[in-house]
């Protein structure tokens, strides 16, 4: 072998070694999800000696796990659609319409851009309580749509609209389309990449949201997935490992499969939001 190919082999080896702690947790999660409690703490082996499929059935009897799964899905869907709508409207105005106050609005929004939810969560809790919406899904929808997430989406959309050729929209204006019509019929159809990026990031964020469910939800059948996952404990508060890991497998694997299929699109979305957001 030439020196160059030895070199390459060394790189690949190093990267493979480095990849272990990234892959290993997923493999062990799936494996442990199929094991009995005793085997989990026996000698370490990746392939279970006895495949205990019952774990996955017990997940659904221990908690209303199907219902919780559905909660996460529909909440993430609603949050995504609302965010797309609202952020693309505001992003469009901030990119294209010259109006007094636009600069001030931008400045205000920047303050929220990276603010952790923890900063405002206490007053928001009292406000939601005052509205009588504790232990409902409303705060899980409202806070992300109008919080830092929504602001990131707004800036992302604005940046993208700025990069589009202006003349097409001007032609539409001369053709008699209203501002709303220009937004909907011209700007939105041209913004697929940015909309896809916003949709992907927003969906994942809502899907993985934890602080808000933890604070606002108390009934099991209203839980979302992350909260449900953290709740597989016995009466002493100790984790029921095999159930918890089986449930985690059920929550994580579909997302990973979608990620493998749409890998390129998803990674690009994050790159876009990181660079511009």
């Amino acid at each position: 072998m030439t020196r160059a190919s030895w070199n390459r082999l060394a790189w690949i080896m190093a990267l493979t070694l480095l990849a272990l702690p990234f892959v290993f947790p997923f493999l062990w999660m799936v494996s442990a999800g199929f094991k009995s409690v005793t085997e989990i703490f026996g000698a370490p082996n990746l392939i279970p000696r006895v495949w205990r499929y019952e774990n996955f059935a017990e997940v659904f009897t221990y908690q209303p796990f199907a219902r919780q799964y559905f909660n996460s899905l529909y909440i993430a869907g609603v949050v995504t659609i609302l965010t797309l709508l609202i952020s693309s409207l505001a992003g469009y105005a901030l990119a294209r319409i010259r109006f007094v106050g636009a600069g001030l609005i931008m400045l205000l929004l920047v303050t929220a851009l990276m603010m952790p939810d923890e900063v405002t969560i206490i007053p928001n809790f009292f406000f939601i309580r005052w509205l009588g919406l504790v232990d409902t899904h409303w705060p899980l929808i409202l806070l992300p749509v109008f919080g830092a997430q929504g602001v990131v989406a707004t800036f992302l959309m604005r940046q993208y609209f700025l990069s589009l050729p202006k003349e097409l929209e001007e032609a539409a204006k001369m053709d008699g389309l209203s501002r709303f019509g220009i937004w909907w019929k011209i700007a939105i159809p041209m913004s697929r990449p940015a909309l896809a990026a916003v949709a992907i990031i927003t969906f994942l964020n809502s899907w993985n949201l934890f602080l808000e469910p933890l604070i606002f939800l108390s009934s099991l059948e209203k839980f979302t997935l992350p909260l449900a996952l953290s709740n597989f404990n016995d009466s002493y508060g100790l984790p029921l490992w095999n159930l918890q890991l089986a449930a985690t497998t059920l929550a994580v694997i579909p997302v990973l499969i979608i990620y493998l299929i749409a890998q390129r699109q998803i990674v690009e979305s994050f790159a876009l939001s990181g660079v511009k957001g």
Partner: protein
Amino acid sequence: MANVQLQGLKKSFGAVEIIRGIDLQIEDGEFVVFVGPSGCGKSTLLRLIAGLETISQGELTIGDRTVNDVPASARGVAMVFQSYALYPHLTVRENMGFGLKVRKVARVERERAVADAAALLKLDALLDRYPRQLSGGQRQRVAIGRAIVANPSVFLFDEPLSNLDAELRVHMRSEIASLHQRVATTMIYVTHDQVEAMTLADRIVVLRDGRVEQVGAPQELYERPANIFVAQFIGSPKMNILNVDAAKALLSGETLPQSATQCGVRPEHLQVGSAEGAGLRGTVTLAEYAGAETLLHIELEGGDTCLALHRDGTPPRVRSGVTLTVEPSRIYLFDQNGVAVPTAA
């Protein structure tokens, strides 16, 4: 059909004034070209008329209406954009009919309007294609077709030919000229290319720094420029500007007005003779041969350089001495501010 009136029109973006007060009367059916160097405000002025920018001050009248606050789509104007601005997701037919559709014009009427415009521009065969399937020249024609379908009282063109190659540009130029002859609608056309301006315009408006330098028919601008800027902007290669002493040497003996400090001579008006005769003496430093003519770079005695176009016969060689003469009526005089000084002749 409509005339267009601009009265004291101003436009600022923030603190920057782009259009600094323009008065202009455009007659019904006239072809007016706005020309000037980049940044002179010509496109902004067109966009003010179109309604794509709001007017900061002054009054804009189209027909008998003040349209300062009439939305673009209700002004009775149509615009052809530099980038054509065709909707990528619509066919040629849909692109051309889009404006009428938005305005809820009946389908039959809409289709007739599109068919008429397509026939006029020989686009019939392309109606079901998408913009991406068209060549640059075809896209340009569709953009013009879309404007025609709108049946405006004023056509606006924003550098419509600058994205085409040289050959197509000449061709489309003649098509636009013949279109104007056929429809006889008021047309306002923006370009930075003075050849386009000269060949198309009934009247040219020369702009600089948001102000009108001169308005006039092409021949008028060429023969009687109001100042050095217009003199140099119109005509190619551009007019030589020399110290007034050069004019004295060329005119031998005539008395010049006191205020004249500079003079101008167009390269095509200089006659290049052998070194012996009377006139301006100089040495050829560079000769650019282009077939029908040769552009001579000449260093004059005293250090100034000037350009001369040599047409018939063999051009003088580089480094040879020459004498330049000119017909007295072809000499332009300017005062120290660059404003034209009328000659006695």
